[in-house]
């Protein structure tokens, strides 16, 4: 009964984002093959680094990709989104900078301590959100609206100075490139967070519990799962993601600007989750989908800039493309496509479906 799965079946929800990505690549190939050229250059700190649109897309999508992963978990468990990730990211950045300033000198140790403390602080803020959602059953959007509106003020209080500078080779190493490695460091941050989450999934039942709670909270409880704890956990993991993204963002610029750090990232992150084929209503999820979604969004932005679209117009063009992707992945279109597909299938697979319907 367990026939070998077809390759397209294992793709599942990734099909649409993969096709979208492929079309974007194809479009750029036809438009200007030079779009994909990769060069080698020496940057300001004397490192040999790869350059080119592709590298810059992967590099600048890093914060978004990291936060999308956390957003995926919260979405899956709570059936709602956290819109305060950008503002809380500003707080994370402020805590990181504050710790470094308090330590006096910037060393590997102080950076690690800063990262640790800013991670803890961020988790606390996210647990505040999580408590409102999981314990008080407030809708995630409302629960996170509070920090969305006041998070950047808190960041400002923590660091009175508007834009504290961090001048250290260690900082630019984290934000730009490692000596001897021609790939931008933020890419490694994405891989690190990805591996961390994979590790969490391997060593705990987080993935199964999160999906179960997201699909049917009542039934989850009747099977001995604690829905509140699962939701809080998803917010805590989002906290880890936000803090890593914030530190990456601060190091990238070598300064903290509480107004622009991770600005507007919440909406892009939610979008990445949706483009990745994950239901915003919670339940089943795939991190790879959201990561793919993040790179699609960045690729789109870079493509538009490469076409010399004026920055004010970029958002409008982006919106049009995203509407198309989201509609293509919508349940209505999906069921239409499935019905069409069913017509092409042979009698053998028909009999399987009949068995399923029995």
């Amino acid at each position, binding site marked *: *009964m367990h*026939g070998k799965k077809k390759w397209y079946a294992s793709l599942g929800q990734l099909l649409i984002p993969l096709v979208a990505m492929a079309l974007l690549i194809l479009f750029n190939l036809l438009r200007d093959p030079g779009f994909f050229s990769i060069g080698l250059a020496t940057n300001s700190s004397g490192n040999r680094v790869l350059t080119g649109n592709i590298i810059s897309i992967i590099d600048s999508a890093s914060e978004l990709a990291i936060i999308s992963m956390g957003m995926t978990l919260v979405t899956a468990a709570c059936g709602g989104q956290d819109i305060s990730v950008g503002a809380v990211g500003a707080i994370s950045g402020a805590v990181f900078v504050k710790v470094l300033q308090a330590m006096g000198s910037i060393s590997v140790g102080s950076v690690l301590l800063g990262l640790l403390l800013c991670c803890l602080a961020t988790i606390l803020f996210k647990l505040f959100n999580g408590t409102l959602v999981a314990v008080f059953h407030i809708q995630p959007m409302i629960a996170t609206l509070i920090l969305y509106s006041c998070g950047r003020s808190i960041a400002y209080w923590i660091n009175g100075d508007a834009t504290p500078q961090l001048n250290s080779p260690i900082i630019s190493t984290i934000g730009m490139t490692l000596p001897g490695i021609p790939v931008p460091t933020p890419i490694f941050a994405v891989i690190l967070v990805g591996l961390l989450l994979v590790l969490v999934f391997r060593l*705990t*039942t987080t993935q*199964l519990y999160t*999906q*179960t709670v997201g699909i*049917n909270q009542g039934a989850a409880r009747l099977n*001995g799962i604690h829905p509140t704890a699962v939701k809080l956990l998803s917010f805590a993991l989002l906290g880890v993601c936000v803090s890593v993204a914030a530190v990456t963002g601060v190091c990238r610029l070598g300064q903290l600007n509480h107004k622009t750090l991770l600005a507007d990232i919440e909406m892009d992150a939610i979008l990445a989750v949706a483009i990745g084929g994950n239901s915003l209503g919670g339940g089943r999820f795939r991190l790879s989908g959201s990561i793919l979604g993040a790179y699609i969004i960045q690729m789109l932005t870079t493509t538009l800039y490469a076409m010399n679209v004026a920055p004010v117009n970029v958002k409008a063009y982006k919106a049009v493309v995203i509407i198309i992707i989201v509609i293509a992945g919508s349940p209505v279109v999906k069921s239409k496509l499935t019905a069409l597909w069913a017509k092409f299938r042979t009698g053998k697979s028909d009999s399987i479906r009949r068995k399923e319907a029995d």
Partner: protein
Amino acid sequence: MQNDAVLTMRGICKSFPGTKALDHVDFTLRKGEIHALMGENGAGKSTLIKVLTGVYEKDSGSIQMEGIQGDAHIHSPQDAQKAGISTVYQEITLCPNLTVAENMFIGRTASAFVHWKDYEKRTDGILQSLGIPARAKQELSRCSLAVQQMVAIARAVDMQCKVLILDEPTSSLDEKEVAMLFDLMRDLKNRGVGIVFVTHFLEQVYEVSDRITVLRNGELVGEYPAAALPQVELVAKMMGKDLNELEDLAQVGQKSLGSRETLYEAQGLSSTESRPFDFVIRQGEVNGFTGLLGSGRSESVRAIFGADRVTGGRIKIKGKPVRITRPHDAMKHGIGYLPEDRKRDGIIADLSVRENIILAMQVMKGFFHPMSRSQMEKFADEYIQALKIKTASQDTPIRSLSGGNQQKVILARWLLTHPDYLILDEPTRGIDVGTKLEIQKLVLKLAEENMSVTFISSEIEEMLRVCSRLIVMRDRKIVGELTGNELTQSQVMKTIAGGEL
């Protein structure tokens, strides 16, 4: 149309996707009578009322009202109200933060200028004439639930209603308040209002009703004068059994258990949904809770499993006192629970058959001990074969399986945890006959292997077949316990109905 009838419904049909909710149902309400509409959950009572009040549009049939020529066109709740049909639902639909007078007249004032002074005066008059202990200027939320309900009725009466529908009006009232409500109902009846009374409290039906209409599975069973229908016959009609047929049906059930050890024992166990009760089950015993739907049988087993918030009681397992306040506690003590509503509480619809099978087992293993993929596949395969679950693959989402196969998956989920005590609430509902028998046989086999099972089913034959002891519930109380020779259909029904035959 009979000349004293205020409402005549003929041949009412209403279908929903997949079910025929009403199949040619007739219903006649006379002037100045209290008419009880009876039936188990899902019999079609609320559908009939929703058709009558314009919430649902009927597929076919006619509704005639006194004083209206031809078919009364009821397509919306407003139409129903205009035709003189008012409904008071079990949950109050008034505005608690407005005054009584405002609640009486809100939405009924024609002009933009409202003379609240006049309305308050009128309200006080109505309240007084109906003997309702409330004042016009009082905020509604400061009245008791019973009085709020009476205010809702007063509003309906003041709107010149000819038909008053009371849907489970007594479910949240205490005895004194019920008596007060019944006085009001009798008063209205004498004023010529026709009252449709929907309730699941059997005694209350006989206290006030003149006539009873019984529905079952969307069909009309019949209309009877209350005085001519003994309570036990009413129960038989609601359940669809002919009393004479039942007398000599042999039971195949479980053999005598001898003196086995007690596995689970509860004293005064209560939850937010169930009243305190005592309960014992021995090792290898199959017993069951029976009673009409809504009698509290599901709530009792939910309390045992900690599914609702447990509010009191002492529990012993194998003689040792234990605390079970949430499902996880119960699972740790070897209790499994297959819930009544498979779709709502059982399946995790979007997860695969495999994940649905291993879920409870995984929870028992703990958060830091996730099962490997190969382990999951092994268990899933084993149980898919053992229970003959029909599925395209382990990866198929459970929602695309048939009801019977979904139920088997949930059953597999609990069997995999190897419980000492398994609670099955309606495991065979909505399942084809073949699967039903399979599940019954499985239960008896498990009991032979020394598992204790509590089995609940709406079908009495089925319970007689598998249970060696039946606990009978009525109105949320245990009213009897049947074993051995007492396990016959007629005896069960007598006990459910209470009183003499």
